């Protein structure tokens, strides 16, 4: 199963919130929808869930129009919140019923997920009597209890402590294993990097960058070289002396030397120096850019 987003556009009055965005998210893989605040992530997600109609473009699943009677969306909004003054059981059943589940189905699923999240003892409590972290777990249960086909998580890791974050990550992996489409939205890149295969970076409503994360990283110039070992001090001196035309900057800390080049040129020359001299080194590698670096470059570059 895959969901195809095809050239969607959404305007609010004069402002174009989402401008001709296309991507495909596949089942069994996590998709990262990235962008700064106000880049159009939430609007895109709302269009996928048919909260807003796209002014232009199409959204299809396996090239078919989305039939909301068959396709269930599990949505964890960035601004979390359910009914603070209502019993957890009552509101979860309500949300499940709104997703066309029967009451008994709902109860069974609710019990399953609360058990899994270690929250079963809170079933009869009011939501606002729980700690913030536990409220988040309840919200997560509300997403998963309906057994969604497509899971959309907006900033799922924000506000979670490390233990709960890893619980969430584990659950997300399980859902991906089951072949579900998982769409992540975040501006915290480290989590996305660990989970997502494909990404799109939105900037002011437009797709600034899209594709397979590894391919994107490969496509970036390999200008960052990391050398470790005892001889890094000497390598730094020699590289700066002989290769100043290629080297933009160097950084040394403990036994690690980072060399940043202007272009991809210079890597072989550095290797040359190392092989000719008798330095004591443990490793030499070309560092791929992190998603964080790519993100900053992409969104900043578009701004200028």
């Amino acid at each position, binding site marked *: 199963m895959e969901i195809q987003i095809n050239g969607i556009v959404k305007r609010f009055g004069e402002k174009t919130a989402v401008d001709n965005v296309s991507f495909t998210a596949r089942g069994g893989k996590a998709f990262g929808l990235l962008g700064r605040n106000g880049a159009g992530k939430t609007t895109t997600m709302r269009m996928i869930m048919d909260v807003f109609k796209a002014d232009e473009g199409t959204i299809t699943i396996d090239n078919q129009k989305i039939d909301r009677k068959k396709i269930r969306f599990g949505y964890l909004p960035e601004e979390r919140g359910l009914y603070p003054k209502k019993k957890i059981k009552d509101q979860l059943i*309500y949300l499940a019923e*709104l997703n066309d589940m029967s009451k008994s189905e709902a109860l069974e699923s609710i019990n399953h997920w609360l058990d899994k999240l270690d929250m079963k003892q809170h079933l009869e409590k009011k939501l606002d009597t729980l700690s913030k972290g536990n409220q988040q777990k309840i919200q997560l249960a509300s997403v998963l209890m309906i057994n969604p086909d497509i899971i959309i998580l907006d900033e799922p890791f924000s506000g979670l402590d490390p233990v709960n974050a890893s619980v969430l990550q584990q659950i997300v992996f399980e859902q991906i294993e089951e072949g579900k489409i998982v769409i992540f939205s975040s501006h915290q890149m480290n989590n996305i990097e660990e989970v997502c295969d494909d990404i799109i970076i939105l900037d002011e409503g437009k797709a600034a960058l899209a594709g397979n994360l590894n391919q994107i990283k490969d496509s970036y110039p390999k200008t960052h070289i990391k050398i470790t070992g005892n001889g890094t001090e000497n390598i730094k001196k020699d590289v700066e002396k002989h290769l100043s035309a290629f080297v933009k900057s160097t950084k040394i800390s403990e036994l690690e030397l980072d060399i940043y080049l202007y272009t991809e040129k210079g890597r072989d020359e550095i290797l040359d120096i190392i092989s000719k001299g008798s330095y004591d080194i443990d490793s030499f590698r070309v560092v791929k850019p992190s998603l964080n670096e790519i993100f900053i470059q992409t969104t900043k570059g578009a701004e200028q």
Partner: protein
Amino acid sequence: MKKFFTVFKFEYSNLVKSRTFIVLTLLVVIGAGIGLSWPRISELVSGDKETPVEEGMTIAVINDSVYDDELINSTLQSSMPEYKISLIEGTQDDAREMVKTDEYGYIIMLKGENEYTLVTKSLGIDNSLSYRLDGILLYNYRSYLLDNAGLDAEQSNAVLQAQMEYNLVETGKSQTNSLLYTNMIVIAMYMIIIIYGQMVATSVATEKSSRAMEVLVTTVDPVRMMFGKVLGIGTAALTQVAVIAGSTILFYNLNSDYLATGFISTLFNMPAETIILSILLVILGFFVYAFLYAAVGSLVSRIEDVSQGVLPITFISIASYMIVMISMPSGNVDSLLMKICTFFPLTSPYALVARMAMTDVGLWQSIGAVALLLVTCIVIGYLAAMVYRLGVLMYGKPPKMKEVFKLLKDSRKS
């Protein structure tokens, strides 16, 4: 449609199961029960129907009139058996002093043929004593005059006790009877609109401020959500009214022997058509307002902003309530103002109820008026739904009226 019922059921059962709702309903039912059983209870407790002589309620009489003490004493005592009449001597200053020191509650100073002064601390608002005294002493004076004119006791009694035979044929509605129950209906309508209307606004704003809305809109169409909510809360209100009305009627029937003559009985002898029309109008009136409240609730982002946001609506509701309440006792419910109010959507629920109950609006006019209100209700419901759709995902400062209209126009274009 299924989702509409899910929302409806959720809102309804949430409200009906809430402690406040149950306690409030019970309190009113108990209050009505005690109130309607009171004549029976008080009779059981006191054992007989006569009101006991109030202690300290001695009426002192200073007699400087042409009548002899014996006559005055026997006349007053026989006409006012619950008071003790006692003849004393003294001046007006003495009388003031005696009342001040609580020696007597009332002192009557009789002078000449037809003059008297009543000295008391405070007559109070509801005190009928002076009217009764007027009557008794005037009767006495007239019989004295007739006596002087040469009539014997029998003749003068015949003159004094002569009465007109009175028959009443009302072709329209009896306003004396309808005033009371119309009052009740208008008050009930006002309370339902204010209490439950605001509840609609608060409920919407709670979903928004708690961000539950973010999830809800992904599964339910906002318009269905709004109608489900308004109908759910409205039905809960209706349930409450039905429980209260039902138990009140039950209590009335249990105690009807003790209440049949009182003004309360007029309440329970409402014409069936008035009841049906009133229920219809109260329901329509509630929806007209509830839709507006829902729209306002969808536009504010925080609970704190609700009370300010609903102020214009509440104000209109209070104003129309006041206009109707002021017009009703005068009996002039067909005045120009009331007629205008009948056709203005927001005042019409109140004005229609009053006019239909108190005057003969006529069948076709009634149907026309209800139809007009129904159309109004649908139009306002439609507009509110459009605002709601826009409002539910809009956060930040509540927009001004002008901005809302602009947004509506923009959204229709796209």
